[in-house]
């Protein structure tokens, strides 16, 4: 049967999420590893024709008839989308096994080796993860791999790695069984969070400890002759006691054996990204490549965002990985840490020969750098006393017109946002309502406020301290507000006070009147 005779159907596991833009829908297949795809309203109308089995030709004709458009034009525009949807199994051949709804291979209370399943964690087409209980009440995780193409290799590599690291930097392997399509592993459960989520709930000192423990875990792993091959925060679990455990060794390299490389993601090293850009085979994973990935993870834990901005289309993202320099912490709203940032820049060098010799030397350098105190940010001006004067019993409330009210509302909104102050929040709400949510005008180019904000933007982008000094100098020259000075966020003492506050938060600074601030 040729392709034009095949009847396709929308898979029953396809889930649709409407997006912000009218008509746009995010489409994904439950249980699939393929990322969700964003479809236009027109594309959604076309694939709705596949709710019942239909050939591609019939669906295009039916859609074109109902939309009153030329079928050839529809085919031209939709061909790429239809191919992508068949490749990602959103559209599947009707009556084929692949069109069946996803069914878990196990169910609650099934016995798997010594474990009894208690709760599904993740059910994918090629694997399952379950929570389970072991005799005596200990908790376990059961991992089932059933992938005809790759499962055997994944489980073989995972078992080889666990033979070295089980119970050390990885959860203890309790039981395993091989099958031709993979197998089943029972591991002791790590009752913890992925490293990035742990960092979110930690304070500065906690994040430092976490970063040190993650690098220590990888140092230990490499010392045992194992490369993880799949570094990302979801594979680095942190227990309530701070213990770090690495999981998922299906791509691990043990004693220089070969293993497939991950196909992308922000933890990819520059050489692998370059190979993907050239459509070439990646070099085998080595310690320097893994050092890069671990450095991306550590950077993300400490700064709250990854070193490169990869929110762009894939080719551009790969290019940035292959050539990019990490962003300064200050650009991400984190406290500048010159010593730590220097160490991470080296571990993140595009040229692997410029990275640290080993994970151990990276760890030693990072440990020393974490002991160096952070650069203190400029102190935040205390605006509390000034805010009280902007309450409804003050002269400003009595005499302000709408334009003045817009200046006051802007000032208060910025103070509320940057400091979290509850009084500023309520007063901002009050003044903003009073002026009908109007914004003050943006500063004229060349004025002190505009120049200071340009300098702040430069500082946030480059981390260069000179730009911050320039912005602070401008703020200093603008003076401090006097009680009878009308609130103006473009010039004068009030603008100076606000600018000093913005200087303490350069990554979040917003020029007066800026939309979306």
């Amino acid at each position, binding site marked *: 049967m040729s392709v034009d005779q095949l009847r396709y159907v929308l898979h029953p596991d396809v889930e649709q999420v409407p997006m912000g833009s009218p008509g746009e829908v995010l489409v994904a297949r439950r249980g699939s590893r393929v990322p969700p795809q964003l479809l236009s309203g027109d594309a959604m109308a076309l694939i709705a024709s596949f709710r019942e089995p239909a050939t591609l030709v019939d669906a295009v004709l039916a859609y074109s008839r109902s939309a009153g458009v030329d079928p050839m034009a529809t085919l031209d525009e939709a061909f790429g989308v239809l191919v992508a949807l068949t490749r990602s199994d959103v559209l599947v051949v009707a009556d084929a096994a692949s069109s069946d709804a996803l069914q878990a291979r196990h169910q609650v209370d099934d016995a798997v080796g010594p474990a009894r399943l208690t709760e599904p964690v993740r059910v994918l087409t090629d694997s399952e993860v379950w929570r389970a209980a072991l005799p005596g009440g200990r908790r376990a995780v059961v991992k089932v791999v059933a992938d005809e193409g790759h499962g055997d290799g994944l489980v073989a590599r995972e078992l080889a790695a666990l033979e070295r690291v089980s119970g050390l930097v990885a959860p203890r392997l309790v039981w395993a069984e091989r099958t031709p399509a993979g197998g089943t592993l029972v591991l002791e459960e790590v009752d913890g*969070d992925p490293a990035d989520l742990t960092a979110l*709930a930690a304070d500065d000192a906690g994040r430092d400890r976490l970063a040190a423990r993650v690098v220590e875990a990888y140092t230990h792993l490499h010392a045992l002759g194992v490369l993880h091959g799949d570094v990302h925060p979801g594979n680095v679990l942190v227990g309530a006691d701070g213990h770090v455990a690495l999981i998922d060794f299906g791509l691990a390299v043990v004693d220089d054996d070969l293993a497939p490389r991950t196909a992308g993601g922000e933890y990819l090293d520059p050489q692998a990204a370059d190979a993907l850009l050239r459509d070439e085979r990646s070099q085998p994973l080595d310690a320097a490549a893994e050092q890069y990935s671990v450095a991306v993870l550590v950077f993300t834990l400490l700064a709250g965002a990854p070193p490169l901005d990869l929110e762009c289309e894939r080719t551009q993202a790969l290019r940035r990985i292959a050539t990019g320099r990490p962003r300064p912490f200050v650009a991400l709203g984190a406290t500048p840490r010159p010593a730590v940032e220097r160490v991470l820049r080296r571990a993140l060098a595009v040229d692997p020969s410029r990275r640290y010799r080993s994970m151990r030397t990276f760890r030693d350098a990072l440990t020393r750098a974490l002991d160096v105190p952070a650069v203190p940010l400029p102190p935040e001006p205390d605006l509390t006393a000034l805010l009280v004067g902007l309450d*409804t019993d003050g002269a400003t409330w009595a005499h302000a017109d709408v334009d003045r009210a817009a200046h006051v509302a802007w000032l208060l909104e910025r103070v509320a946002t940057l400091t979290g102050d509850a009084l500023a929040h*309520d007063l901002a*709400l009050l003044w903003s*309502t*009073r002026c009908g949510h109007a914004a003050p005008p943006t500063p004229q180019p060349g004025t002190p406020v505009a120049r200071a904000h340009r300098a702040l933007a430069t500082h946030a982008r480059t981390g260069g301290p000179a730009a911050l000094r320039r912005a602070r100098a401008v703020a200093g020259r603008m003076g401090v507000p006097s009680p009878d000075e009308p609130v103006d966020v473009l010039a004068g003492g009030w603008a100076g006070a606000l600018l000093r506050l913005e200087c303490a938060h350069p990554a979040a600074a917003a020029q007066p009147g800026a939309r979306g601030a």
Partner: protein
Amino acid sequence: MPVETDGRLARLTARAVGRAAALSAYAGPEALAAFCYRAGATAAHPRTDARWARVLVDRATRSHRTALAAYRRSRTEHWDGWTAHDADPAVLVHKVYVSPTTPAVPVALERVVAVATFLGVPSWKVGADTAGLHRADKVVLYLPSAQRADAVAQALADELADLPAQGVLFSGQVGASGIVSRGQDHDGQSWRAMVCRAVALALADARAADQSATSQRVAADALSSLAADLDVVTWYPGARVAA
């Protein structure tokens, strides 16, 4: 139930009513009600990770998995909720608000879950996004009777007494700090939404009656017009609320 007549929440609410009275010269009842309802929150820093709130909620519940098995968990965009399998939501109208400052949320959440599961609170919800954990009423517990709600509120007030309070305006303070307070839904309407709307309408009426009146006069007139139906000093629920 001992009621804090000169408590922190009573003072903060009086101040919010005064501000809304001043605003009544510029805005209508809808905007006034929105101001009253949102007063007492804080703004989220723009760099806050969107996953932060859910992480805190998940961590707070982790050590109570066994007790939480008796609850059905619901997740919406803004709230995570737990309701006992045998609870009847229709009768759960007596509310206990918990309002720590945002930095104190991680510690407070752990303790709230411990108290709620220990006392068998039939239902509660927690703000599960960044905005939700910056609003004043970050955690709301639901009980079937005023007596039980008072007992739970007192237990929570004792348990959370050492934590800094943000405080839920237009609710009745329980304990010394204002971290715990009470409300009561009527006819399917949320307590605070209902009270804030009543206050806004009264303020608009008072302003309309005398455009040149001072804010203090407008506030006083509005509150006295509500006093028959609401406790306009402590905002403690119990008095009948006009439809």
